[in-house]
């Protein structure tokens, strides 16, 4: 009886994941736990970091095979996350997230001051600086483009481009992009203070003009036509972004608008986060390249902030001191976090300064700018 008990115990142990676990998987589970800690305790982009972290945990549990494709002889189904991952692989989730973002975004400040678009363009500088440095470090052009797009500070765009150009880098790029987006209040302020004078930060900007309903309705239609004709490869992102915005601004499809900005975006966020995390298996994640990607991501964020600020300074000079250059740093996307940072820094210099609405223009322009940059890379290397 005792022998059979020992045998049974031995069989259970052998068929369990504990016996099959490698030290790399154990390390990845620790990484997942750290990310869960950062999401829950430090509140670093918890909406995405928590599902990503749990996806990392699930994918590194031996013998669970949640990301396993179906066997070649079709003798059984694949893992749950394998099927959910098809939405990332085919570029469906990032586009649906953009639909929700469009439904939540107010493009009014951008329409009121179209010159905000220049700041949104300048704040893509980091993408190209990181691209050049990545090439120097030995990454191939597709990988370098995917790493560079971290500087767009736009998670769905980074995932969209990387899943098409360098899917093996997806987990590292997604984790770096969302981590740095969460760290924007720490990354940007020192650069903002370094590149601007106190006098510039104190500048109070004139109130924006009121934007008519007609302008708000025409805007998404025009942007879709122009951008998608110029860069057809970016049509899934811009098309969905503008469709969501048209839902919001038209005022005639309140139910669709509500669904897009609540239920749909939440459901897709769960699928996107979990499956992107699940691609972070030890063999692809525990490599020196991951550290390089993390460092390049930071470089991209820094230079994007610098690009926006420098053009902000130029606009300040050309306008005779009517533009506060702090709004330039908001051009890095990361809506609305980057705009809030501009507001906070502006108010520190001058308590009567209200830059939030002025910074929202470059902020939403950055979303379009990073999508255009992704479209350019897709055209070049896709």
């Amino acid at each position: 009886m005792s022998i059979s008990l020992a045998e049974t115990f031995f069989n259970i142990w052998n068929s369990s994941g504990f016996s099959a676990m490698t030290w790399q998987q154990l390390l990845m589970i620790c990484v997942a736990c750290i990310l869960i800690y950062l999401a829950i305790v430090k509140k670093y982009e918890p909406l995405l970091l928590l599902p990503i972290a749990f996806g990392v945990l699930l994918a590194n549990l031996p013998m669970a095979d949640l990301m396993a494709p179906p066997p070649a002889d079709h003798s059984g189904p694949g893992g749950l996350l394998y099927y959910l991952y098809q939405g990332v692989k085919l570029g469906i989730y990032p586009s649906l997230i953009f639909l929700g973002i469009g439904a939540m975004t107010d493009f009014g400040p951008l329409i009121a001051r179209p010159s905000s678009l220049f700041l949104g363009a300048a704040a893509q500088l980091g993408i190209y600086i990181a691209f050049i440095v990545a090439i120097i470090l030995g990454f191939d052009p597709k990988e370098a483009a995917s790493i560079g797009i971290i500087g767009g500070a736009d998670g769905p765009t980074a995932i969209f481009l990387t899943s098409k150009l360098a899917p093996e880098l997806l987990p590292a790029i997604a984790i770096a992009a969302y981590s740095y987006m969460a760290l924007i209040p720490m990354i940007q302020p020192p650069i903002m203070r370094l590149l601007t004078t106190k006098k510039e930060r104190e500048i109070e900007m004139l109130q924006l003009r009121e934007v008519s309903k007609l302008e708000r309705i025409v805007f998404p239609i025009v942007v879709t036509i122009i951008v998608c004709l110029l860069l057809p490869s970016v049509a899934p992102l811009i098309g969905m972004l503008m469709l969501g915005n048209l839902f919001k601004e038209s005022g005639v499809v309140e139910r669709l608008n509500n669904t897009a900005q609540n239920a749909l975006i939440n459901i897709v966020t769960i699928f996107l986060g979990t499956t992107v995390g699940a691609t972070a298996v030890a063999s692809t994640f525990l490599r020196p390249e991951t550290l390089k990607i993390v460092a390049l991501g930071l470089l991209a964020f820094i230079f994007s902030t610098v690009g926006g600020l420098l053009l902000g300074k130029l606009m300040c000079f050309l306008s005779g001191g009517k533009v506060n250059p702090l709004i330039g740093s908001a051009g890095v996307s990361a809506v609305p976090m980057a705009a809030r940072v501009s507001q906070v820094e502006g108010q520190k210099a001058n308590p009567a300064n209200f830059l939030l609405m002025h910074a929202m223009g470059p902020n939403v322009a950055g979303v379009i700018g990073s999508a255009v940059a992704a479209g350019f890379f897709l055209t070049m290397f896709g």
Partner: protein
Amino acid sequence: MSIVDALLVSLLGLGVVFLVLISLSILIKILSVVLGYIDNKSDISAGQIISQNGIPGGTIKTESIEIADSGWSAGELKLIGVDEKTAAMIMAIVSDESKIPLSELQFKTIRLID
């Protein structure tokens, strides 16, 4: 890919981003002018219709009616580390966001939190 090629791709890429966004800004500017003209025209014709119906003063702005309805906030308000201009703005935002007219809201203290 060589560094020179990477540099060229980057310059081209940044150029494309600027080109697309500058084109958009010009288009938005043109649209604003055209749509503003159309809006003004429809405002004037609506004003004329109101005038013909015997209401003096031409056009009626809806915003002014909303402001008149919202009334005033009453009672004593303590401001701690906040100037009057900021306090007025906060009160207006709270009223707008909560959809409660200022006449039905009472603010006791507005304090600056460090």
